[in-house]
């Protein structure tokens, strides 16, 4: 028995030492390889910047190995695409990405591991590799599981304006509102118009698609879809009305302020809150009195929104000070006092 345990401990220790030895070799090699790549990048970067800014007529020479070329260009272009290099010529950047990376990513999508494929998809989108549109779509068709790869592949297709994914956006089950918004964000106006058609032609459209469309357009202040969003404040479903009211706050306008009248006295506190928020967002001084009345609303969120939006008017602070000092209602005094000291603009 003792011998067995001795052998077990010695065996495991030996195996670990072997792994340790391999890891040390691997680490030493990785460090040296990374240093080598960094050195090449450091020497090539200024030359590529000159080329991209038009001060150098031809492309700098890269090492011969295709893999090294891909690693170097990926690192360098990733940096160039970031904000700090905003003045580089995008057309040339895109040409470089197509030339050195498109084939590499095509191969990765076919044969790479899960993590490598996702990384490739991230970069296909970052570098806007239009030549890989069909590859990305075909890859998407093969995906069964709704995981990060599925989501990133859809993002890529949306970025590359792949029309065949529109039915996925509007009909696929299990996509969250937030994710649909991410996809809408990538679509151009023409494809957005097609999404609107699908929504209007389908009364049973999933609510999260409708919510995403309404919210997204408000956040982006998309003028072509303003009237669609505004009409939704009369929808019979409360949640849709709330999304539309919230979206109008983001638009910061209404076509006719009187459409708000009914919301100030709505039996739903959320609608009263949004009425208060819209008053501030659209700067509608005619509803200042209504806001003052909402300061004594039984719901904290309504009082908070009323106080917060009174403050957005030029005389808002003075009004709140008056309320804080003289109002008969303790709720009103409390929230006015709070708003006067706690700054921060419009709350989330």
């Amino acid at each position, binding site marked *: *028995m*003792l011998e067995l*345990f*001795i052998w*077990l*401990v010695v065996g*495991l*220790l030996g195996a*670990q030492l072997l*792994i*340790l030895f391999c*890891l*040390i070799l691997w*680490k*030493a090699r990785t*460090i040296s390889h990374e240093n080598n790549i960094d050195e090449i990048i450091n020497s090539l970067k200024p030359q590529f910047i000159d080329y991209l800014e038009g001060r150098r007529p031809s492309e700098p020479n890269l090492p011969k190995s295709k893999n090294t070329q891909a690693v170097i260009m990926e690192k360098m272009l990733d940096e160039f695409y970031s904000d700090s290099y905003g003045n580089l010529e995008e057309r040339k950047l895109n040409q470089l990405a197509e030339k050195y990376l498109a084939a590499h990513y095509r191969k990765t999508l076919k044969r790479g*591991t*899960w*993590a*490598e494929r*996702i*990384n490739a998809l*991230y*970069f296909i989108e*970052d570098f806007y590799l239009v030549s890989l549109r069909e590859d990305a779509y075909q890859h998407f068709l093969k995906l069964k599981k709704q995981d*990060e790869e599925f*989501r990133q592949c859809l*993002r890529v297709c949306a970025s590359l304006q792949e029309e065949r994914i529109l039915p996925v956006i509007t009909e696929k089950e299990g996509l*969250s*509102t*937030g*994710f649909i*918004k*991410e996809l809408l964000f990538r679509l151009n106006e023409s494809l957005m118009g097609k999404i609107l058609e699908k929504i209007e032609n389908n009364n049973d459209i999933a609510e999260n698609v409708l919510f995403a469309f309404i919210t997204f357009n408000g*956040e982006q202040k998309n003028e072509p879809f303003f009237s669609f969003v505004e009409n939704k404040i009369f929808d019979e479903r409360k949640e849709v009305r709330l999304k539309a009211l919230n979206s109008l706050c983001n638009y910061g306008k209404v076509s006719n302020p009187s459409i708000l009248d009914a919301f100030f006295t709505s039996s739903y506190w959320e609608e009263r809150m949004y009425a208060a928020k819209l008053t501030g967002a659209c700067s509608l001084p005619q509803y200042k009195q209504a806001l003052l009345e909402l300061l004594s609303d039984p719901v*904290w969120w309504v009082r908070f929104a009323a106080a917060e939006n009174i403050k957005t008017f030029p005389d808002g602070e003075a009004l709140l000070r008056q309320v804080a000092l003289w109002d008969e209602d303790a709720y009103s005094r*409390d*929230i006015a*006092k*709070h708003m*006067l*000291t*706690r*700054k*921060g603009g419009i*709350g*989330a």
Partner: protein
Amino acid sequence: MSSNFLTVLIEFISWGIIFYMISAGLIYVMLFLVASPRIKKEKKLSRHEQIEELSINKDTYPISILVPAYNEEAGVVSTVRSLLSLNYPQYEIIVVNDGSTDRTSEKVISQFQMEPIELALRTYFKTGEITRAYRSALHPELFLIEKVNGGKADALNAGINFSRYPYFSAIDGDSILEQDALLKTMKPIVDSAGRVTATGGTVRIANGCKINKGVIERVSLPHKPLEIMQIIEYFRAFLIGRLGFSRINILLIISGAFGVFEKSRVIKVGGYKTDTVGEDMELIVRLHRSIKDEKSKQRIEYIQDPVCWTEAPSTVASLRAQRIRWQRGLAETLWTHRKMLFNPKYRGIGLFSFPYYLFVELLSAVFEVLGYFIIIGGLAFSFIDPDIALVMFLVMVLYGSLLSSLAVLLEEWTYHKYPTVGSIVVLYLYALTETFWYRILMNVWRVKGLFYAFKKKSVWGNMERKGVFSED
């Protein structure tokens, strides 16, 4: 006759301990096997690219970061600074000074130009009285609230009352976050459209690292053996244990040093419990309980990325105090929720997680200390076959040193945060020494902690801060 009986009894106990330790070791290996496919799958994933979208996405939920602080004058400014530089679209920082007797408040007030503000709180939980609140003139999203001392849990509850965003994160005053920590930790919540209700990330030890203005500039090892051993211990706990538990949704601990929670669910379960020293684990158990009771599909997740760096105790006295406190906290939580033990209603939590924490995390120290007595006493007084004593010793080496050295190898295979070849060798060699000194210390303190669990008293603990973050 009686001497024979004693020998048989000790032999029986010895084989029991050997069997127990082999089983516990196998559980670790099993957890490792559960965790490793995911670690392998995600190893090459670009973490930065993965969160790029979130940093600009308007649906990335705003979050309130709560920093409970009791006598944290050495590190609180650096912690706040690191939080101010986080990459996250919308967040507020709320430092809760829980009646510190040192200059915690003064440091924050002077460093960030805090100005008094009027208080109007929604009170979800009763807490110690809040005496003052401040807001920074330099950073509008930074708040400081001062309250009467009530313990860490009470401070966190006060922070939740004051917070205004739908998610909150609790971070210790002696910890700093990596710049993308919040984005990485929120990602499972955003991706699941809120189905994930709480997330925790891997915590690492900052002792030895070069830190400048609240940012880790260079990761390196400390010099003190005690600190190095804690680094190895964290590898073992986070890389082998927690990820395995999280994979099967039975994770019972999100480190008190850093976690993200859905505020409404925490409010629903009553906030942090103030009469325990293990408030972080206790909250997670209660969250699991409420999720299971409601038959909700929500879950608690752990992300494997190292996102939070914390100051580990550097003296024997402070480490001892910390470990006694942890053990007490664990005992109290398991006792409070004892009905969940072996209860099939709570599935994996009741049938695996709870027994694991009871028999492996809580009681292993008792078995090991008993083992020490048997080995030393047995060999010295010859009341046990020396072969059995040696087998027990070898099992201890397997369970202690070899598992920890495996964790070191795993860290190098996955994250290799320590940049030099020398540091892996040092960590590996230290891991091999674990059974011979560090584990003995830990076990003795943990047994003490178990005894102390009977004397209930809610305290912060008196960890002596060297202030590894204050060397700005």
